[in-house]
């Protein structure tokens, strides 16, 4: 499902260049739950961004569902992010002006779903995460755990087969963190592919497989 072969990523800042990934090869099967771990600066987030089609590799081949990602346009990548991949960020990244309902509805709007389908789906998701009664609240009116659950609902809006979670519990207390991990585990059991970046061993214990990065390379 996700195949990375010899992925390199070089960031250029003026005359300086920084090689964040130095040739990463990785294969993630459908329905797998993997954790990507490593110290700061090891390239975890860069790898996650490339898998999430938020960034493109400088070198190497990335095949997602038999499609070569390198050949996709900006808008085709946006469509992939909209339908195939759900993102959960450490700092939630909810739109501050939008209500919980509107935040969850946004990917459906971008996908052109009609009002009836949007209403059904947002209602279903908000009820599933237990925040239906909070639907008119803005992110600033919600706790960290509630915000992350809204972010999770948003990530699931278009029912994507892949969920990418970048330190999903990093900004949460342990109880909220556990709740989020329970939801992620549940989603994996339903058949979704989960790729999670963390440097917390307790969190990574939820996954099936751990991929360790160091200095831009996958440790054997």
């Amino acid at each position, binding site marked *: 499902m996700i195949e990375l072969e010899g992925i390199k990523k070089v960031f250029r800042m003026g005359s300086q260049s920084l090689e964040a990934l130095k040739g990463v090869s990785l294969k993630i099967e459908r329905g797998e739950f993997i954790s990507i771990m490593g110290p700061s600066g090891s390239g975890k987030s860069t790898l996650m*961004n490339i898998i*999430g089609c*938020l*960034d493109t590799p400088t070198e190497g081949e990335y095949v997602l569902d038999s499609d070569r990602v390198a050949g996709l346009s*900006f*808008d085709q990548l*946006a*469509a992939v*992010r*909209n*339908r195939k991949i759900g*993102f959960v*960020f450490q700092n939630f*990244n*909810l*739109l*501050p*002006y*939008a209500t919980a309902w*509107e935040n969850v*509805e*946004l*990917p459906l*709007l*971008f*996908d*052109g779903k*009609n*009002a009836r389908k*949007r209403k059904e789906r947002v209602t279903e998701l908000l009820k599933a995460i237990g925040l239906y009664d909070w639907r008119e609240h803005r992110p600033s009116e919600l706790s960290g755990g509630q915000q992350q659950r809204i972010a999770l609902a*948003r*990530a699931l809006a*278009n029912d994507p087969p892949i969920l990418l979670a970048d330190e999903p519990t990093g900004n949460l207390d342990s109880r909220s963190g556990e709740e989020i991990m329970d939801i992620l585990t549940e989603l994996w059991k339903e058949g979704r592919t989960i790729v999670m970046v963390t440097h917390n061993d307790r969190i990574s214990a939820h996954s099936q497989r751990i991929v360790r990065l160091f200095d831009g390379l996958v440790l054997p």
Partner: protein
Amino acid sequence: MNLTLPRFFWNEFRKRRKKAALITFALFWGTLSILLLLAFGQGMSTQFRVSFSGLGETLIMITGGQASLTFEGLPKGRPIRLYREDIAYLRERIPEALRIVPESYNNWQVSAGGKEVNRSVHGTTAEFALMRTQVPQMGGRFINADDNALGRKIAFIGWNVAKDLFGTEDPVGKEIVINRVPFTVIGVLMKKLQDSMYQGPDADQIYLPFSSFSMIDSQREIDRIHIQPRGPEQSKLVAERVRVLLGRKYRFDAADRYALGVWNTIEDSKEGLAIFKGIEIFLGIIGGLTLLIGAVGVTNLMYAVVKERTKEIGIKLAIGARRRIIIQQFILETMFIFAKGTFWGFIAAFNIVHLIRLIPVNYESFGIEAYLLRPIFSLRIFVAYVIILGVLVFLSGIFPALRASRSNPIESLRYE
């Protein structure tokens, strides 16, 4: 475009409207300033035309003079006088003239209801009203052809005469005595701006049918001939033909500028109108430059908005917003702001113009207020303004929107 997206954009815009208040205010202020500028420009220009036409429109006035050149053995210094027969003489020979009417006047004591004033009394015909903007107030009329044919003892009076003799009473149907002969008032002149005159403003004059005037006035000659050419472009030709024809009749040199008094108001008004046209163009240029400055201001502010919303753009891109969605949102927001600012600017300008127009103008003073206090709100100018500003604002919004759409999702997400 998905129809639900604009509604979502509108919702977002409403929540952020306080942040957009500065741009909205800039557009409101710009709209108000430019619409007022143009309204005052157009009002002044129109008032000038109105005040000039207070004397009459496309009018040439001929008066007798004195020969200043010897001609065919005749000495200079001879007085040249005009007579009633000259009207028919000129009408037959100048087909380019639409109307030719006589006018005679004299100063007499005029009394009514125990009040007495000394006023200029004129004898003329019905067509005089069309040439000299003699519009009666409600309930009255000017002299007609029958009045002249039947020698009716009727009078059309200026509003000052009405006020002096009758106070606040309606003079129509009442009697006035002119040079010991009773006349019935049939109409009062409607108030008007008049910046050019000969026997004083029309507000102070009394007009009688020419035939009735001749009964109380002993002189045979007439004081003035009013000629209206068929078109303003024929005014010079008509004036020249009058000199040649009357020169032939009364034996003076047509090139003698003192033999006749010729007041060509059409040529005079051209000069005045050119000045006001110049002012209008100048105001238009100022308005155009203001629009351009406004558009640059909107662009800058929209760039600032894009910068401030970098993270939001990143989030939207991360969850699947296509480039055109980002562009649409910024363009629509710019147009929402444009619509709001322009709408309130229009409302404010419209009301200010109409409030100013409520201030009464003293028609006799010819002061600057008669020109300044009559701004004109033109819907045509407003529509043109909206189209031009709309295009400029759209262009102001498109560049920041394009920049936003080209954002790198990762960099945008990291932006704090």
